[in-house]
């Protein structure tokens, strides 16, 4: 039984880590997207505008928190709280660092290493849907309602794909405990020296999870909940002041949380080379550093998606979720289960098993990329049956130019 102060310390440290990470993300996203669009981003407050988030927070805190007359008030107030609380709770099972020794106590930087840890993450993600849906519904206004319906449908659909992707991890590890999942990835992979991350043998599941987490966090290109061009602000149209700030915090928090989850489940969490560094640097600092580096890489991926991709159309979003991601994830659960079973009855050598898994993963991604590129023109239902023949004059003109 760990003493109370250890629990309090880890809670405070983990909470502060994610809260600071969220604050930094809000600033960094605006700077990085700005750079991707040949502009500067916020640069007025503090060095490189780094205090912009703080100032925005103060502004939101002191703005009028207006409640429209028609809203269903208790639910209208509870909805943003549900979002923030679900966001904070889902970080509870994620270890952000390695073993820390203070006094006589040795503990991991995790709030609670539950035996159902990975399910907890999924459960909190589902709870977040309530925040979005209740906000849209209790606003009693058309745009928030449409936004709420859209995003709850989107989140529920992608949760299935995400859950199946996590199921591959469960099957492969044989445990739902997050510490077991990380321990399973900390050793060597295919060959000694290669990381044992689940992203390599479970590549399709990793891919499905990576797409699903973008939809779960309602980030571009899947930010249909707040498609400002068509739905004003989506589910939080009627919110202002601090309650809007809570939605914003929950939304950005989910980017960090989802990155942390994908790092934990597929990229080995805090594990990484320590370069033979001595003592507390190897056990305290390096795991935290590796975890942060991996998480930042995924956060950058989120930002890159926002900078690179236009928003999806709603029906295509649903098509992608139901017709591509769920089948791929489902097949991969079966394949993983088959390999695990084969291993248990003493079938295949471990290296061959992982090699086959990796090859199959590459095959699937290859099919996805090439198929996705070709499908664009051919399978569009409203595409013209036959292309009109270019007229003879234009062809001869082109030939003259070519000569």
């Amino acid at each position, binding site marked *: 039984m760990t003493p109370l102060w250890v629990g309090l310390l880890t809670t405070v440290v983990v909470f502060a880590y994610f809260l600071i990470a969220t604050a930094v993300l809000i600033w960094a996203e605006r700077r990085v997207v700005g*750079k991707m669009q040949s*502009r500067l981003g916020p640069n007025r407050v503090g060095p490189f505008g780094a205090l912009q988030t703080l100032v925005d927070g103060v502004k939101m805190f002191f703005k009028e928190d207006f409640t429209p007359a028609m809203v269903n008030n208790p639910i209208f107030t509870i909805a943003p709280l549900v979002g923030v609380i679900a966001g904070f709770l889902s970080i509870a099972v994620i270890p952000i660092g390695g073993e820390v020794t203070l006094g006589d106590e040795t503990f991991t930087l995790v709030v609670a290493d539950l035996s159902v840890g990975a399910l907890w993450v999924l459960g909190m993600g589902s709870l977040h849907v309530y925040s979005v849906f209740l906000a849209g519904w209790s606003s009693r206004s058309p745009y928030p309602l449409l936004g709420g319906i859209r995003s709850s449908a989107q989140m529920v659909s992608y949760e299935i794909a995400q859950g199946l992707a996590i199921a591959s991890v469960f099957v492969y590890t044989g445990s739902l405990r997050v510490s077991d999942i990380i321990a399973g990835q900390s050793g060597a992979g*295919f*060959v000694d020296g290669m990381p044992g991350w689940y992203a390599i043998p479970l590549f399709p599941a990793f891919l499905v999870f990576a797409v699903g987490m973008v939809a779960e966090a309602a980030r571009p290109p899947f930010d249909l909940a707040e498609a400002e061009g068509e739905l004003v602000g989506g589910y939080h149209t009627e919110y202002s002041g601090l309650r809007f700030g809570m939605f914003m915090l929950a939304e950005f928090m989910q980017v960090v949380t989802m990155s942390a989850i994908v790092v934990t489940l597929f990229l080995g969490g805090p594990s990484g080379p320590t370069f033979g560094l001595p003592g507390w640097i190897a056990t305290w600092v390096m795991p935290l550093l590796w975890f942060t580096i991996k998480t930042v890489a995924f956060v950058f991926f989120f930002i890159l998606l926002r900078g690179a991709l236009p928003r999806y159309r709603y029906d295509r979003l649903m098509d992608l979720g139901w017709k591509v991601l769920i089948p791929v994830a489902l097949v991969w659960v079966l394949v993983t289960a088959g390999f695990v079973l084969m291993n248990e009855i003493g079938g295949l050598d471990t290296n061959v098993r992982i090699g086959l898994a990796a090859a199959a993963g590459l095959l699937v991604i290859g099919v996805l990329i090439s198929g996705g590129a070709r499908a664009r023109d051919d399978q569009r239902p409203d595409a013209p049956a036959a292309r009109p023949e270019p007229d003879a004059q234009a062809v001869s003109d082109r030939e003259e130019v070519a000569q």
Partner: protein
Amino acid sequence: MTEFLTSIPAPVVTIITVLVLVALAWLFLTRTVLGRGFSVPLRTMLRPVETAEYPEKPRPVAPRFHGRHQLNRYADGLEKCIGCELCAWACPADAIYVQGADNTAEARFSPGERYAEDYQINYNRCILCGLCIEACPTRALTMTHEYEFSADSRSALVYTKDQLLAVVPPGGYDTPHTDREVRERGLNYYGGLAVTPPTVKGGKYAPAAAAPSARAGQVIPTGKLPAPGDQPIDPATVGGPTRPRDGDSR
């Protein structure tokens, strides 16, 4: 196969893994449809930003930018404006007010017969089109690169002569001068002819034949197109290079 792979030392495997990952990322970014799209914002990140950090680092304006007006002076400090009001007549926004007055022997403001006693440009109306600059016969009125002259009251936007007049050039003197001082300097105010300002006889100016007019520096239309090598003649040049012009009857 497995034995061979396990015989490679772990650091080498790590390096090979990293290289393979980098190669895969490079292939993705350069060879696939999706990856080429992703590489656009990544490449943009490496380019310099387009943002003009205006109040801190204003960008230079175009060489012929139409900024705030300025009333120029000759090298000795005499004003170029002769109070002819052509700028006011040219102004499409009716933003210029000129009150001309006669120069006297004891108080000479410009080399010509007249000078601008009062000169106002109303920047509430001015559209900075530059037609006044084209109309000015002596290049007295030009435009500067200054564009930060907004104000919070209308009266503050009516610029008067003291605000528009250029600073006295080094070695010059503020107006008014006396005729004696001006003649002693022996300057050539109107390029091409070494002339001094007209003298005053009995309270009246000498006729134009005796004293070259203030328009002497203007390019007189000849009906011919300029030859490619011709230098434009700028009457604002004090004693600058000059050349005889075709059709100049003087």
